[in-house]
């Protein structure tokens, strides 16, 4: 703990390049929230048990609370703040509003990032499979039905394109 000089870390976050000097004990989650003011990514447990901190790292969904920021040197991170294309919402964001897929909204950024990653993985085909592969993202308000409805709407919509 004597040496407090950080490790130079390069990250692309929501298409912006950052060069940060970080101590190795800083999680990606705390870096986003406390250093970069990207507080859309939420801390719900800090143990990888709730999914509220889910972000996309090089296109894959990861738990930012279990990720040390320095370990992602050179990676491209997408957080909830970077999901919409300017003022045009991502289809999942629209579907979440339409299907009342949240109440308090605290798990929502993680649910949306996780759903984007899950759809890209291409493993889940049925509603039951979507429920299973989204089960790392907890919702305490019980907005689960709306969340799965919203994801299915987007999944089925994109299938017809």
């Amino acid at each position, binding site marked *: *703990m004597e040496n*407090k000089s950080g490790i130079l870390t390069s990250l692309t976050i929501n298409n912006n390049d950052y060069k940060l000097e970080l101590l190795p*004990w*800083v999680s990606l989650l*705390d870096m986003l*929230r*406390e250093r970069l*003011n*990207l*507080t*859309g*990514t*939420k*801390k*719900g*447990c*800090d*143990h990888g*048990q*709730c999914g*509220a901190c889910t972000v996309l790292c090089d296109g894959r969904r990861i738990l930012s609370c279990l990720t040390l920021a320095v370990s992602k040197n050179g990676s491209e991170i997408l*957080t*909830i*703040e970077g*999901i*919409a294309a300017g003022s045009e*919402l991502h289809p999942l*964001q629209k579907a*979440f*509003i*339409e299907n*009342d897929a*949240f*109440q*308090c*909204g*605290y*798990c*929502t*950024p993680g649910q*949306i990032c996780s759903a984007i990653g899950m759809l890209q993985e291409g493993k889940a085909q049925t509603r*039951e499979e*979507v*429920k*299973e592969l*989204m*089960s*790392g*993202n*907890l*919702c*305490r*308000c*019980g*907005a*689960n*039905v*709306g*969340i*799965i409805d919203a994801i299915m709407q987007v999944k089925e919509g994109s299938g017809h394109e």
Partner: protein
Amino acid sequence: MENKPLIGQPVSRLEGLEKVTGSARYAADYHVSDLLYGYVINSTITKGKILSIDVSAVLALEGVVKIFTHENRPSLAWFDLQYADMDAPPGTVFKPLSDNIIRYNGQPVALIVAEDFETARYASTLLKVVYKEEPFDTVLSQNLDKARAPKKGMSTPLKPPPPEPAGNFDKAFGKADFKTEATYHHGTEHHNPLELFATTAIYEGDGKLTIYDKTQGTINNQFYIANVFGLKYKNVRVLAPYVGGAFGSGLRPQHQLFLCVLASLELKRNVRVTLERKQMFSFGHRPQTIQSLRFSADSSGMLTAMNHCAAGETSSYEDYNEILSSWSHKLYPAANTLFEYKLVPLDLATPIDMRAPGGVTAMHAIECIMDELAYKLDMDPLDFRLKNYSEIDPSTKKPFTSKELKQCYEKGAEKFGWHLRNPKPASTKKGNRLVGWGMATGIWDAYQFPARAAAVLTKDSRLEVHNAATDIGTGTLTVMTQIAADEFGISADDVSFFYGDSKKPFSMFQGGSAITASTGTAIIAAIRELKKKIIKKIKEMPDSPFEKIPEHQIVFRNNSVSVQNRPDICIGFQDLIRANNGREFKVTKLAGPDVLKLRKYSKAAHSASFVEVEVDKDLGTITVTRAVTAVAAGKIINPKTAKSQILGSMIWGISKALHEETLIDPNLGKYINANLGEYHIPSHADIPEMEVIFAQEDDTLINELGVKGVGEIGMTAIPAAVANAVFHATGKRINDLPIHFDKLI
């Protein structure tokens, strides 16, 4: 263009954009300069004293600014009353760091403040606290000999003791042909909102603070902080524009608020304190309870006697109480009743209301024993409820302001297909699974608390309404906007509701499913007053066409003031402001329940739930596959957000029945599953097919809006319906919640 009425419309949440883009800011999301981070240290013993605290290694760490303990806590308010928040139960409020006494495991004993979060957290590992341990008791079932009547206090009128005995229970039960008795154990539960409890205190200088806090009551916490720290009310502003769930845990100021403010005032700095998930188990919870019930009926199926004795856990310093044994007599008209409610003080933190407190716990026991008795009578469980249906409240002999429970039974049963049920337990199989159907009744109070609202027709001819209430995810912003728009005849786009701020007019706290009735009624009252003021003004205008028009013929619609059946007389809101020399119109108005009228009535929301479970024959694993809940809760302002409230509370009910429980190690006095990996709440994969039905219930008595609240009623019937379905599937009565597979094999 005609403004369509919004009440009754499924309007999407108005804050949806903020919530899906991550721009909604919760208590720990405020970025302020020179922010310090506080980390709470919790007691590792359950009862005893702190003998010494060695802070030297902590203070030697670079980046640590200060550590607060009972040894250096400044002198603060002396009197218990100054610490008593609006939801404080009878007793002595816990005062963080006030002495060296340890009252429960996890009690906060110190706050480390550092330049960054990581340093504060690491520093906590360097703190050395030496304790002297004393024997303790933390398990309700082992301490029933200490049960005693709850103390009375300020909150007693809200949570009255059970009704007096009626008839002669012992005699009636003794000679009854059909009777049953059972005991129901419930373990501890923690609210676990996904948002961690957090406070960001911004030091504004001269004893002035702006505080972003996780709370269900901004004014409650403002008063608490001002009273405890001796600050002027106007110098303490508590804001909670977004609250990441609370479910009752935010009804009282929690210790992170106190500690954060203490550090901010002492250090004259901006400070944030966020609890960790394990620390979310270090304050209020749903208490352990044990309920013993004895019900009897005559051969026609009429209930003759009901006895409900309940014991709940409380802390050693406060008498938390909830309504447990009063519910059966609000539903069923037995002539002989005996009800009892007692508390057992244990060495745990004071419990706090958790979604449908008391009601969901009690209704599980009541509706399970009703099911058991129906089987003794060889009656269909639903027919048994209908046989004992009461249009009036048997416990008070008063009529209800409205009661459409029968509609809930009928519509719910129809949707579920209840009439197809083979009553014989373990009669239906699906492969290796036993299928069971269960039903139960739900009931919840219909509260209304006093609230004050401001209504403003602004210079740019928009309507603003203001109230200090929070929106914890219930849809309050959307619902209040709908109410205000309709009452003022203005489009929703031209309405702004300002809330979640202690500077706004009074709101007590967001609990008991009361906010729509409380704040909504205040908004109606304020807008009516605003309309009066506007009418007075337009009548006084020179050559006013409104001058001779009676007030009741003047209507507000389509962003203008006009006269019924006189399309020629109309003034738009913009012209109105011009006529008022460009000045706004503003009023504030207090509203509360019409106590004189309502004391002649009983009031309650009702529900009926129907549940299907599948139980694995060999493994005993239980899956809820279908659930239908029909709700009678007066007028539904927004069917979209209300449906979400019911769905959410149904999931809570399933969770209480099958998933969640905080386990305590009696040898350590400590919760052993204080994390979201081992404290099980339903995940997406656990969610069954679910249906919500709203009964048509027109209530012209309950309040101006005819609403009863929907936050809790959807939960109250579910646990019993699940347990009854498990019985139907397996033939086994499991009376202790949660029902885990091991209880079935």
